[in-house]
């Protein structure tokens, strides 16, 4: 096996062998978790089996089955109204907050069905962080934004250090280190979104769900977020919904294509999806024939 990025023969962007990409990710993870016992890389962390969602009588998702591997970036793409955000919100049960939403099927996080009667959605959301479409910092200081999840979850520790780590991981520390006690609303849109990412990772979740996190941002801020997502996958499992196919191609390891009617049409390695999809409809969508 090769030793990650430094090996010249491993060039994931130029090879057509999708296995190479996965191997590369595996090795990268191993280097980052050296001395720390973690489950074998690439192991499934989120597993959906026949997940259906109804809003009243409208079926938003139809029999979704897919397995999201750990410490990867999994992108969910598809046209508007295809249910991609709905699926994301099934994973941390944010759909519970909508009165007339109903979910059935099995959705396992690390082997446990999150819709089991004994699962507390609040406890679930403590393991699964979320970043939203529009930056939504609290009208509190930058510091208090980052510590909010820690306080809610009763996490003790050196908050100053956690805040610094989270802001560094979110590539925001250098820009805000001297204004931690000023309002998060004073930041630019891109900075606000990175603050929201820092806030989501501060409590150290297993999974980070991102719902079109760059759609409200300018191109520069978008590319900062994209760079960040690649780094985050070293430590977290990232599931990102995006309407931007190039973005999915750039940043994800796996891609799921949802098409109208809430159906998962194809789920495979990103490279395969973009270069040689199995389904004609996926190819049509990716080449811009519709959507």
């Amino acid at each position, binding site marked *: 096996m090769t030793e990650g990025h430094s090996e010249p023969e491993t060039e994931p962007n130029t090879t057509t062998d999708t296995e190479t990409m996965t191997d590369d990710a595996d090795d990268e993870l191993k280097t980052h978790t050296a001395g720390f016992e973690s489950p074998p890389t690439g192991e499934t962390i989120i597993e959906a089996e026949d997940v259906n969602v109804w809003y009243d009588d409208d079926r938003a998702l139809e029999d979704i089955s897919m397995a999201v591997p750990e410490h990867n970036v999994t992108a969910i793409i598809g046209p508007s109204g295809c249910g991609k955000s709905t699926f994301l919100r099934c994973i*941390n049960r*944010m759909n519970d*907050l909508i*009165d007339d939403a109903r979910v059935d099927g099995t959705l396992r996080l690390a082997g446990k069905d999150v819709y089991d009667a004994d699962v507390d959605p*609040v*406890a679930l*959301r*403590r393991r699964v*962080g*979320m970043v*939203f479409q*529009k930056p*939504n*910092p*609290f*009208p*509190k200081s930058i510091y208090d934004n980052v510590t*909010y*999840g820690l*306080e*809610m*979850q009763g996490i003790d520790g050196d908050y100053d250090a956690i805040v610094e780590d989270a802001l560094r991981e979110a590539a925001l520390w250098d820009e805000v280190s001297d204004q931690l006690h000023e309002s998060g*609303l004073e930041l630019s849109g891109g900075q606000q979104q990175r603050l*929201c990412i820092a*806030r*989501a990772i501060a*409590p150290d979740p297993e999974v980070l769900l991102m719902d079109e996190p760059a759609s409200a941002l300018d191109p520069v801020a978008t590319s900062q977020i994209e760079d960040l997502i690649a780094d985050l996958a070293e430590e977290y499992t990232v599931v990102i919904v995006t309407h931007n196919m190039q973005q999915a191609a750039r940043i994800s390891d796996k891609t799921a294509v949802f098409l109208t009617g809430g159906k998962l049409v194809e789920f495979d390695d990103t490279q395969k999806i973009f270069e040689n999809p199995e389904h004609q409809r996926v190819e049509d969508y990716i080449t811009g024939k519709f959507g």
Partner: protein
Amino acid sequence: MSSITADLTTQTTKSPRERLARWFFFACAAISIVVTIGIVVVLVLGALKFFRSTGVALGMAPGDTVTLSSYLFEGQWTPGSEPQQFGLLAPLSATVMLMLGSAIIALPLGLAAAIYLSEYASDRMRSVLKPALEILAGVPTVVYGFFALVYITPLLDQLVPLGVGTFNMVSACIVVGIMIIPMVTSISEDAMNAVPDSLRQAGYGLGATKFDVSTSIVVPSAISGIASSYILALSRAIGETMAVAIAAGSQSTVMNPLNPVAYFSPNSPITAQMIQLATGDISAQGAAYHAMFALGLTLFVITLAMNIVSELISSRYREVYR
């Protein structure tokens, strides 16, 4: 052709009817301003005759006037008996008691009800509770006064070991507190509804419970609206007359508003003293008559100041959401 030209140049916007309508509507709108100015002028003129430094110049006998310092800093209020004394501190202390006492009832209850309506209640529950609150707001204040006198005071009399008198400040504070709950609730709820849902989602996404989201996100985000609801409700409380006059009697004594025991005694705030003066047997030229104007002006200044503070808070601290 010529008939078309004639049609096109008809000056309907300058017709007498349009002009008249414009002036009529303006006059209606202007009434409120004119009346406000008129009231302030009357209050100020009456009050000027009350004070010695200005009253004598306006033709008052020095004996029928009071010095500003004795009005502001003395504590005997005996307009109806000799020697007549006009120390504002007595009715003012009752007004402060009324404000504090009703605040203790209304602020927590009103805010809690607003949190329930905005964060917890189902649409069905809200459709029952909101009209009920509006009815509460619509009950005539004199009815609240009777309610205090006939139900609350006897109840307190049984609960409190030493008993309370027929007239006391506690029952007045309780009914006025109940009276202003709808105001606190409806303004606070509006402020909470204006908090963007994305902030709640962010909270839930971080593993916050409904209680956490309500108290640590929604309430702080709506704090400017909540603060103005408090101030507006309290300015309503100190302007309240009828219920207090019925429940708390007509005595006027300086009391320490921070002393809980004081609340079991009768006392009458500025508003109730004005009723006493207005309905009492007093000469239209005497100091007692003009004291009414001085009290009215005092009350007006207090409530105006509170309204200005409320405006300042809501404009200064309003969070701007994108």
